[in-house]
């Protein structure tokens, strides 16, 4: 039962790493898996907020690294799901407080008892990123269908390949089908042509994610959320199930528009 260690990273900030970590963690735990999420963004922690666990933090990752707490003491158990845990980051320190070998040590300690270890990486390519990928088995690269996000994702994949931790799997987040249809947003094929790695998930832009974050209730718990459904699909794919990708290139909308047009002109 050795856990798989996944690092959720992106290069660019604000593309949805923390959202993805929280929601994939919740989705896997909902399928009965034992999951621990680690926030490695020391100094700018927010995985705890997205999961709605910020008022239960007693010990954090740096406390464990510096020996003030045992690993189990820092693991916050989520009350909504049977086996979902969070190890939060420290807010009053910075990335130098943790080293890559610390991360390897902690993940080795977690591996025997867990199914999944999800590490939320900070943005950038410096120490925080290096800490986050040190123990990884597979990197999940989150990007937006937007040129600067893709540029940074490409850089990250290059760095992963150089360290032989590549190439990773791709999650394209915040897709707006209407913009893709109009040619104002990169479509999936454009992104895959540059990044050329395996696609793991396509997540549509969905305001339910913003609402969920503010409430500390991840969208993957909401059966009506489209983004939530996409994250649940990712969890299934990670478990080995073949789930088809939604068509987010707007062809459904086009068909709807055409049928409305036909009805209005009275055509059969």
């Amino acid at each position, binding site marked *: 039962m050795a856990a798989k260690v996944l690092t959720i990273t992106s290069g660019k900030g604000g593309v949805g790493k923390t959202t993805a970590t929280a929601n994939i963690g919740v989705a896997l735990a909902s399928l009965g898996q034992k999951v621990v999420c680690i926030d490695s963004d020391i100094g700018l922690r927010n995985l705890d907020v997205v999961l709605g666990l910020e008022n239960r933090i007693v010990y954090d990752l740096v406390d464990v690294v510096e020996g003030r707490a045992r690993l189990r003491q820092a693991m916050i158990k989520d009350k909504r799901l049977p086996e979902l845990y969070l190890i939060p980051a420290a807010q009053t320190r910075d990335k130098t407080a943790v080293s890559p070998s610390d991360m390897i040590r902690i993940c080795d300690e977690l591996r025997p008892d867990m199914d999944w270890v999800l590490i939320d990486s900070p943005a950038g390519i410096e120490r925080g990123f290096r800490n986050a990928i040190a123990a990884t088995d597979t990197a999940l690269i989150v990007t937006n269908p937007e040129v600067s996000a893709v540029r*940074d994702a*490409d*850089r990250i*994949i*290059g760095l992963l390949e150089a360290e032989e931790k590549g190439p990773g799997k791709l999650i394209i987040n915040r897709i707006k089908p209407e913009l893709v249809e109009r040619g104002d947003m990169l479509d999936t094929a454009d992104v895959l*042509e540059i990044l*050329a790695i395996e696609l793991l998930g396509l997540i549509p832009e969905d305001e339910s994610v913003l609402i969920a974050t503010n409430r500390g209730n991840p969208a993957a718990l909401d059966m009506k959320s489209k983004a939530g459904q996409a994250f649940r699909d990712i969890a299934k794919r990670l478990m080995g199930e073949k789930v088809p990708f939604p068509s987010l290139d707007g062809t459904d909308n086009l068909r709807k528009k055409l049928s409305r047009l036909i009805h209005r002109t009275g055509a059969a």
Partner: protein
Amino acid sequence: MPVSVNVKGIHEGLLISLDEGNWEEAFPSLLEHLDSKPDFFFGAKAILQLGGYDLHAADLAALRSALADRGMGLRTVLSINEATLRAAESLGIETKVPKREVRESPFSTELQGSEAIFLHQTLRSGNSIRFSGHVVVLGDVNPGAEIVAGGSVIVWGHLRGTVHAGASGEEGSVVCAMDLSPTQLRIAAYVATSPPRRGKSLPEIASLREGRLVAEPWNPKEKPKADDGVRE
């Protein structure tokens, strides 16, 4: 009367040839010659061409010791005299110089060409290749990747990064790509950007014509026009 000693450097060591004469005179002549340049002979491997000298094992043993005193190894003795050859064999001295196999290198060529570096990979954002000769990439060059070459650049794939050919001033350098869509293209001191592409991409070659950067399809059906770095 001293006997003439001739020394020639060969691949296997020093070939020392003795003229015809009397061994009683030849031997001291040899030693005198060796002593005239002790540093030159020290550490050398000797191949002695003894011609017709008729020598016994004792003579050869004395010869070997004398050479050893001077830091030389008696590796081989060449002779047309039967007795000398047998004596050499009995002392464990070689009597033939092994023929050196000159293998024809499969890579020798009569055409000179010039140095190029070959990369069988896609260059990702942040990758940088700098080389004084030509650069050939079998793969894509993504936006954010850069190639700086003293010579020409060929990309067998999509060229979307930045490329500088002829970086040390060679204005005859060219840039070829299956899809020539660089963020920025330079040849020697000239710079151009890609206009937005319309339609399918074709293999193209960019070069300097009369002070302007020109990109033209790889197999032009009509003569190319110089046009302010704008694609045909």
